[in-house]
């Protein structure tokens, strides 16, 4: 079971205590601090001012803050016990409101009020209601805010003692009287098996202080000190001058207290039709007043017990200092009762809360404020992940971009090189084109410088060839290949010319052939001439520069005389390419 931490602040008339409980299966008191309030007078405004001062000191000293429940003193709260018929819960509040409006001296709408059923006989219910002035509650709220607390509940001290009594052993079916003697009032609880009756007596430690102050005409602070020194628990009246006064004052207080208590018991008897308490439990620092317990014992003739708070909760005594442990049993009944009530309550609504409804709503709102603030902050920071994401994407893109830029720079450099390369290539192509024309023309021309000599040499080679012996050339001439104009141009351009060569050769008979008659001689000469023709033609055709034999004429008669003088006239038109 998870530990539930409860910070309970008891705003007493003469002290403020802070209790921190852990509500588990058992209630445990974790921390307890208290501080007395010193008052010049007992007005509400001074008390509130003192509360703020003391609470602030306690908070500062013990580093306290946050949500807290506040127990209000009986003097600050108006309580009323009323009987109403037993009705449904939903109608009960309206009936109580109506009854209170009839019985309270203030308009109920002007008050902050709440109630609790304290007795139920099946037909009627006894309802204990409490009310506080809204302005007082407002002031208290402001004070506790300023001290760093967020009030979640204002609950009167009177109702809480009942829870404490109920927690005591052997009290479940017992009629008992519980007295919590406080500073300004005494809370009287008559507990019975069906419920309880509570009354608040306007008598407490301060009543004695006020009596001393009146008698001695001293300030309340001084009177309080005198009270503690002379009329406190175990103290003796040391001041001989005022011994009489103190005795009178004490007697007056005892008488008042006894009368009020007896009246309450009588009233209880009347209400409860003769039932009387069987024992008395006492608590509160007021019981330390000299002779008070003896008075109670003698006047009520009932067994008297100190209230033992350790029946309600556990505590680690080593965590508390000695002074705290001395006062703790007198001061803890109400906070312990509240702790018990919180633990036993099924819902928040079942507890009495005098905190004004508007204030409660405001507090509820304020409770939500941190969450709203957190939500606001989270909403405000909502774009942060997007920013991180987009920043990461931007940095990725930037990186990618810089890589791309670097790549493009390289590619641009390459493209520039390509352009330079291309330009150089174009330039070189132009150079090569023009250079080739230049070189080729010069080369062709250089070939032509000795082309005629070369041809003549070749021609001489033909004549000197043994197969063509006895051949001589009579004429040589060159002329342009005439034919068509187009071929003439082509001929000029292509360095082709026609070489006209004419001459004669002798035709010898083969000495190995026997010639018997003239016909046989002619036949032999024709054969020999044929060989010579072929040889000469082949030789001329074999000249390097000769492209083709355009025309050839062999005359054995007329210009030649083969049969008589054995020579043949020849004429060749050779197509020549000098640069071949």
């Amino acid at each position, binding site marked *: 079971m998870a530990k539930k931490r409860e910070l309970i602040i008891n705003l007493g008339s003469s002290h403020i205590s802070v209790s921190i409980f852990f509500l588990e299966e058992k209630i445990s008191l974790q921390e307890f601090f208290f501080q007395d309030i010193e008052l010049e007078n007992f007005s509400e405004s001074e008390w509130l001012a003192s509360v703020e001062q003391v609470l602030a000191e306690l908070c500062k000293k013990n580093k306290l803050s946050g949500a807290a429940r506040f127990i209000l003193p009986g003097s600050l709260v108006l309580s009323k016990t009323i009987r109403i018929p037993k009705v449904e819960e939903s109608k009960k509040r309206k009936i109580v409101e109506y009854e209170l409006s009839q019985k309270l001296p203030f308009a109920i709408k002007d008050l902050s009020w709440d109630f609790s059923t304290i007795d139920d006989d099946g037909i009627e219910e006894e309802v204990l209601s409490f009310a506080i002035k809204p302005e007082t509650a407002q002031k208290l709220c402001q004070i506790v805010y300023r001290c760093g607390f967020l009030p979640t509940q204002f609950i009167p001290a009177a109702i809480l003692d009942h829870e404490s009594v109920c927690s005591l052993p052997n009290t479940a079916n017992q009629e008992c009287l519980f007295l919590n003697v406080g500073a300004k009032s005494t809370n009287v609880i008559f507990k019975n098996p069906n419920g309880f009756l509570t009354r608040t007596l306007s008598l407490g430690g301060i009543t004695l202080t006020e009596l001393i102050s009146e008698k001695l005409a001293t300030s309340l602070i001084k009177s309080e000190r005198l009270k503690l020194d002379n009329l406190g628990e175990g103290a003796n009246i040391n001041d001989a001058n005022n011994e009489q006064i103190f005795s009178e004052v004490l007697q007056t207080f005892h008488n008042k207290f006894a009368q009020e208590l007896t009246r309450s018991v009588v009233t209880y008897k009347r209400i409860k039709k003769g039932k009387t308490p069987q024992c008395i439990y006492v608590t509160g620092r007021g019981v330390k007043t000299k002779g008070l317990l003896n008075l109670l014992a003698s006047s009520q003739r009932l067994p008297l017990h100190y209230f033992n708070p350790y029946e309600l909760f556990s505590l680690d005594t080593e965590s508390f200092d000695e002074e705290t442990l001395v006062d703790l049993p007198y001061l803890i009944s109400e906070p312990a009762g509240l702790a018990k009530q919180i633990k036993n309550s099924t819902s928040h609504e079942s507890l009495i809360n005098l905190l004004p409804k508007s204030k409660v709503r405001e507090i509820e709102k304020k409770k939500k404020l941190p969450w709203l603030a957190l939500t606001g902050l989270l909403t405000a920071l909502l774009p942060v992940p997007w920013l991180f994401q987009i920043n990461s994407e931007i940095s990725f893109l930037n990186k990618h971009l810089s890589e791309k830029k670097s790549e493009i720079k390289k590619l641009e450099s390459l493209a520039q090189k390509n352009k330079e390369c291309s330009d150089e290539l174009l330039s070189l192509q132009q150079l090569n084109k023009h250079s080739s024309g230049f070189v080729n023309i010069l080369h062709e021309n250089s070939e032509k410088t000795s082309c005629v000599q070369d041809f003549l040499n070749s021609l001489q080679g033909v004549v000197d060839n043994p197969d063509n012996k006895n051949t001589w050339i009579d004429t040589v001439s060159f*002329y342009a290949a005439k034919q068509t104009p187009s071929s003439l141009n082509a001929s000029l351009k292509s360095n082709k010319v026609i070489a006209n060569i004419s001459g004669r050769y002798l035709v010898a008979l083969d000495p190995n052939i026997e010639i018997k008659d003239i016909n046989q001689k002619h036949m032999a000469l024709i054969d020999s001439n044929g060989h010579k023709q072929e040889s000469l033609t082949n030789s001329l055709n074999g000249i390097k520069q000769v492209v083709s034999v355009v025309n050839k004429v062999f005359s054995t008669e007329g210009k030649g005389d083969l049969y*008589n003088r054995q020579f043949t006239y020849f004429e060749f038109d050779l197509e020549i390419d000098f640069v071949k």
Partner: protein
Amino acid sequence: MKLFYTWIGICVVILTALLILYFSKKSDYEDLLSDLKILSGKEEDLSSQSVVHDLLNHDLNIAKNEWFNWNKLSKNQSNFWRSYLDESNNIYFNQSNKSSSSINTELTRLISQLLRECEKSNVNFISENNTPSPFLETDQKTSGFSFGFSGYDGFWPSFEKEEANRISVQSKIIKQIVEIFLNSFKHHESPTLYSITREAAGQIDRKYINDDLITLNTGISLLRSVKFLDSQVFEISFMGKTDNLRSFINQIRAPFSLRSILVNRDGTTSELSEQASFFASKETTSDQNILPIIRNIDSIFIIQLEYITEANVDLFKYLSSYGQNDLERFFSEDYITLK
């Protein structure tokens, strides 16, 4: 509550600021995306261009190699033509700028000198219009032969200096041709010179050149038919044997180039032998004993010679005429030796 509202206000401010920042970043992000898209497109373009890098380099290497080859060949050609031009011995280049009158004197002296030398070598001068005949030999010897300058034998028109100098160059070239001609014949031979013709040296010369103007053979193109070369063409017509022609041709050296030759039999001596057969007897016939058919083997040779006077064979200058940029770079030693 005030604190709460302040807090909420702060939260709203923070939220607004963060949202503004976010949208600003978002805008930056979108800008970056857009930039990236543009850059990606650019990168794609450039990548596709870079694919051709290797091909370009390959082509460039081929083009460079080709260029180195052409450059080398052009140097070879340049060297060839420079050596062909033979500037140190080329008359055209060694011609000092002389006055017209001094050239007249020089020409007159040259003609006299050539005539004397021809006389020494028993040269017969026969007019080209006349049929060369051994019977005219004595008469022709005495005729005034002007070696292509008949128009200026005792006459000298008013020449521009340039034209006169060009005539002077021609005269010196003709002197060399005559020397070659004379050297083509042995001492005992009696050469016959028909004519020497030349090109007109200018407008004035064209008026007076008369029959000395050369008729160019249309068959074989001249070397100067290409624009890089310039030349002067001369024609010499003489009678001789094959050996004389061979000797003449063998003496032709650069910057001369033989451009045409016309061989004709000497009409006066081309009669065939009356002998029935060129073979002495059938019995003794053998290849070695065959006799020539024609006893007089003289021929008339008409030779055209081209004398190269200019050779503009510098590739750099040639390419400059095309307005090619950055030529110095391509001709630089660094570039040429880059290979």
